[in-house]
């Protein structure tokens, strides 16, 4: 049985690069043109110009720089409904990722994404799928979540609680809420709640199911990270309240 990639590699992709940085555009064009599975690469400097190119020639997939749409304040929703759009250089923040997916993008790549990720993203996008940059799961959900949830690099770890002579595990096992723990740590509850809500929306589930899924798929590991474990437990308690 052929894999998706083998099938898709037999046809050449017509790629449009949308980026308002001329040097990046030209470099990307040169970089992609060397790929045998890419047939045509054209480039534009604005979202508005994309429609003109699409009227003149057939395009299979658009590679759109994240900053371009945000900086020019142009909506890409309509574009995303017409053709697969992969958004590049998306900041590693849940809010930014959520907004990109909400607009209907067929995938996103963070700054750490490699050329292999880009290739996978394009293949998946042209076959109707949505590519989620793999690095997001580990860097955001596992390691960066605390940073995303809580400003100024405060973490909900055991060590933080220990400094206040509190045992976080005990607190959580006693059913203490996120609000209570947040108060002990002098952290704004709203920030933690905001991140948790976005995480759940990103998964399209409620908080508890989202985290259970993350754990069952090995994205989050309660055994390897006490902080992760605490978050999971904490969410469970919060939802019960």
């Amino acid at each position: 049985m052929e894999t998706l990639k083998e099938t898709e590699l037999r046809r050449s992709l017509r790629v449009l690069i949308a980026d308002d940085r001329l040097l990046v555009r030209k470099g990307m064009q040169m970089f992609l043109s060397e790929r045998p599975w890419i047939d045509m690469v054209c480039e534009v400097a604005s979202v508005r110009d994309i429609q003109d190119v699409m009227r003149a020639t057939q395009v299979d997939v658009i590679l759109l720089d994240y900053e371009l749409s945000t900086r020019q304040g142009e909506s890409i929703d309509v574009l995303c409904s017409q053709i697969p759009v992969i958004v590049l250089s998306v900041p590693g923040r849940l809010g930014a990722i959520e907004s990109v997916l909400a607009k209907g993008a067929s995938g996103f790549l963070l700054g750490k994404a490699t050329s292999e990720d880009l290739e996978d993203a394009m293949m998946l996008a042209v076959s109707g799928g949505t590519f989620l940059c793999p690095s997001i799961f580990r860097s955001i959900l596992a390691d960066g979540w605390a940073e995303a949830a809580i400003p100024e690099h405060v973490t909900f770890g055991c060590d933080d609680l220990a400094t206040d002579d509190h045992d976080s595990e005990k607190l959580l096992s006693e059913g203490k809420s996120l609000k209570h723990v947040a108060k002990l740590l002098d952290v704004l509850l709203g920030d933690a709640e905001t991140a948790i809500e976005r995480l759940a929306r990103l998964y399209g589930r409620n908080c508890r199911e989202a985290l259970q899924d993350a754990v069952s798929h090995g994205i989050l590991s309660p055994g390897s990270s006490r902080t992760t474990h605490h978050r999971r437990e904490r969410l469970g308690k919060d939802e019960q309240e």
Partner: protein
Amino acid sequence: MINLLLAEDHLLVRAALAHLINSFQGIHVVAEGAYGHEILDAARIHPVDVALIDAALLPVQDWDLIHQLKTMRPGINILVTSSYRSDRYVERLMEAGACGFVHKNAAVNELETAIHHAAAHRRVLYPGIDISGLAATEQAPSPVPALTRRQQEILKLIVDGCRSRTIAEQLDLSVKTVEAHRREIMRRVGKQNSAGLVKEAIRLGLVPFPT
């Protein structure tokens, strides 16, 4: 042959720029890096003539990377590249030891020329950049309020015209937290309203100015 160190934290952008630069006559990318220690290691190992560094790796008011590169390789010529431009920011770069600034929207041949000029220890400025205030600044540096990394992020979004709710969504913060940061930024910059804050932030080079 000019040996170039390319410092850029977005891997695909870096790959694209490396391809472009390697197509230039007499210029070769000998090392790449995404973070401070990677860049310094690369400069230590390779005989680098010119370093092309993305401004995102040089936070406002933090020129350690430039200083360390210059200390490690006194002959190195540092070019900074960015999608944004601000005369005051470029002035600060030059004060810190960079030899020039190239906008990422420069023409391909402008980048090539800039690298050749930098290798020849010549000053390189993207057209339209005015650093005439540099001499005056050297004599009487204006006080620059210190902002945390988070405050810098929020300030950039304010300058981009984002409201508190949008900023909160972008940074995964609550609106209240964003507003608290906004008030603190205003206090530090000494302005009472958003318009004044934006104007002052650009004047001081606290944020790069979108073209």
